[in-house]
């Protein structure tokens, strides 16, 4: 079987026909198979939401945890067995809303993982409430007079936090998306990919066409290592929305902060209870 085939789940999805999630799944599987990563060599951590159902819609090691809590269990895995690749995948409500504190602090940790955020600017699964990225004048059943906070710009936030890899892609451009996911997977350190994803059921403003009219790829000579340019480009939103790797830098990854993690992964190590005798010396 080809690697691509290995990822095929055998069940229908819970997604709506026409949803951007299908394209993301496709690009993801292609990215993984082009990198020759098998389903058993990678773990996917997700929260709760439509996007977060991903591990049920392909065949992969998966930890489908709690709403807003996709990142923390991945940190545990990075420590326990860094030999497995790590994908954290969830909706933008899950990631930037309920899970905001984990995002904030894991950028500081810089764990080696690819974080794919399906940004449909809406809470899909719970049927259409505003999310942190909903546009300024979005009105919903809860906010009939419009949302009460400014939209969150994840790209600008992550660049300013000096995350080690910050990209935007678009489910409507699967080639670009595949390439970006590959780069995120290959990047050593925390790699955020905010993926614009139309929700055909609840977001009637930011449709596929809306995005298509605005999205453009960063210039070929764009230098993602240039922090101040990145910060500026991160502001672009509205008439024109850049996609691509907006910012990048290499720095110490989380696991390397623990010198005791040098040899085999923890999961392969047993504890020798005889060591207790040495430990008791402190209490004698």
């Amino acid at each position, binding site marked *: 079987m080809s690697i691509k085939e*290995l990822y095929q789940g055998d*069940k229908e999805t*819970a997604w709506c026909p026409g949803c951007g999630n299908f394209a993301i799944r496709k690009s993801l599987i292609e990215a993984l198979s082009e990198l020759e990563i*098998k*389903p*058993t*060599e990678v*773990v996917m*951590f997700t929260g*709760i939401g439509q996007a977060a*159902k991903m*591990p*049920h819609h392909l*065949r*992969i*090691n*998966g*930890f*489908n*945890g*709690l709403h807003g*809590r996709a*990142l*923390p*269990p*991945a*940190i*545990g*895995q990075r*420590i*326990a*067995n860094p*030999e*497995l690749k790590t994908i954290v995948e969830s909706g933008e409500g899950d990631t930037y809303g309920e899970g905001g*504190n*984990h995002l*904030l*602090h894991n950028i500081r940790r810089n764990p080696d993982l690819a974080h794919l955020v399906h940004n449909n600017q809406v809470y899909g699964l719970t049927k259409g409430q505003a999310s942190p990225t909903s546009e300024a004048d979005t009105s919903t059943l809860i906010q009939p007079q419009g949302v009460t906070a400014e939209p969150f710009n994840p790209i600008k936030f992550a660049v300013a936090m000096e995350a080690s890899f910050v990209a935007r892609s678009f489910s409507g451009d699967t080639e670009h998306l595949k390439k970006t996911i590959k780069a995120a997977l290959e990047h050593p350190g925390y790699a955020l990919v905010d993926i614009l994803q139309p929700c055909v059921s609840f977001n009637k403003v930011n449709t596929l066409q809306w995005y298509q009219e605005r999205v453009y790829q960063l210039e070929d000579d764009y230098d993602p290592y240039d922090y101040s340019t990145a910060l500026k480009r991160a502001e672009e939103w509205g008439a024109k929305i850049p996609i691509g790797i907006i910012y990048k830098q290499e720095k110490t990854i989380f696991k390397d902060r*623990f*010198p*005791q*993690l040098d040899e085999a992964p*923890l*999961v392969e*190590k*047993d*504890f020798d*209870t*005889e*060591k*207790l*005798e040495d*430990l*008791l010396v402190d*209490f*004698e």
Partner: protein
Amino acid sequence: MDLNVVIAGEAGQGLKTVEDILNKTLFEMGYDIYSTKDYMSRVRGGHNFMSIRFGDERLTGPAQKEDILIALNEESIKVHRDLVVEEGIIIYDGEVEVDNKELLSVAASDIAQELGNPKVANTVFIGALLKALGLYLKTTEEVLKEYFDNEKIININLQALRKGYEQVEKKISLPFVNKGGQILINGNQALGLGAISAGVKFYAGYPMTPSTGVMNYIASKQEELGIVVEQAEDEIAAINMALGASYTGVRAMTGTSGGGFALMSEGLGLAGITETPLIIAEVQRPGPATGLPTRTEQADLQFVINASQGEFPLIVATPRSVEDCFYQTFRSFNLADKYQLPVVVLSDQFLADSTMNVIRFSHRALDIQRKLINEEEAENINNYQRYKLTEDGISPRAYPGQLEDQVVLVDSDEHDQFGNIIEDAETRIKMVDKRAQKMKTITKEESLEPEFAGENEIDYLIVCWGSTYGPALEAQKRLAADDYAVGLLSFNYVWPFPTEKLNKYAPGTKIVVVEGNSTAQFASLLESESDFTSHHNILKYDGRPFTGTEIYNRFIKEVIK
């Protein structure tokens, strides 16, 4: 012989150092020790004190009376003067009225000043105490040499010690003792050591008094033993990090107190439905909310047992002593792995900060049982089902990457045997029953029974759980010595609720529940989970631990009348 030395002063005056040095000295000399802390939630000032109870027979709790007071400031005289027994000794730097007690005035601060370091005043007091007790200096000198690592500081302390020794006369004659094969350890350390001995590989936590000592201890060994301790951004992250590590195949743990546990409660249910082993040390303090951060209470019992929405198997261990913190934490890891569920180790500030001598732990008593799929099984699996339905409710557990070509999928939604989301009634029922079956299997295969102390024929049965054991045992012994037919049943597991020994010892007795809360939570549990009813409850909720004397007195007054 049974003496209680109280060292009192304000936060920042170095009480802990005095306690450490005295504990160590008395321990080295072979005395039995039970030392506790009473401190405020502040860094400087206020009023704190340490009680070091020591004697020549095993001690299981703090004393009520104060025999000797070392008062580091005037406030301490005010607070403790009347608590010191008649003929008791007060050591103080100054002259004060002490009624029918003996004042040993020690010019500690002048001496320290002369020696050129005001901080060694406390060591002067130690010297004075040793002399009053008729003890030699040698042991303490060795202790000081180990305690400090700077030659100059050691020397000045040795001088201070000797000067203090010279300030007073011998007042008390202590028996000679010589106990071997013991260690001196507190509850949090014992809990952490139990986890380390069980092979914990990952500990994620967020600081919260009085649980932080567990994390500190494990962290201090992390480099040496290849463990990772990570300070999480909050308790929600902590429990989810630990779950991720456990899913990946290592033994993982988190720890906190009640407020942090509240934040973890959603994650507890996640452990339950994903069937991921997890140890949570919940070191109780008085609530609700912030409550009394540095004090003790046993009021999280029902919360812990019932925490998180929905229903799932859970074990709640309630170690009864410092020693038990070690053994039950160790065992909890085996139980969590075997039954693939969360285990809460429910301790409290009293245990956490109780330092005592216990019989040296031995690795020979320890058998780590992971219960993961073994290599042979791994090879024979074709279509791996993480949640395979089995008779005992326990499915074969593999970690990601362990099986060739097979993935491991876990889910917080209700799921089928492969871990995929389902919504049909039939599968739902099967999965609820599967998880519930694990609780039945535990009840069948494990003994989580309480310990009984007392004679065969009893009229009264004192029932307690967790840390109240030590004081309750002391009370039971005294009551028995007074010829009351009183037995003691002490629970160190409360969930699933064990009933065998209750059924054996309780019939025909009057049950008296002793616990550290205001609503008699264990008594409720007893009512709903057994055939018995509490006759009377002795409760305490002032933030302080029980003493044996207190239980004894209240038993006489409230029960026997």
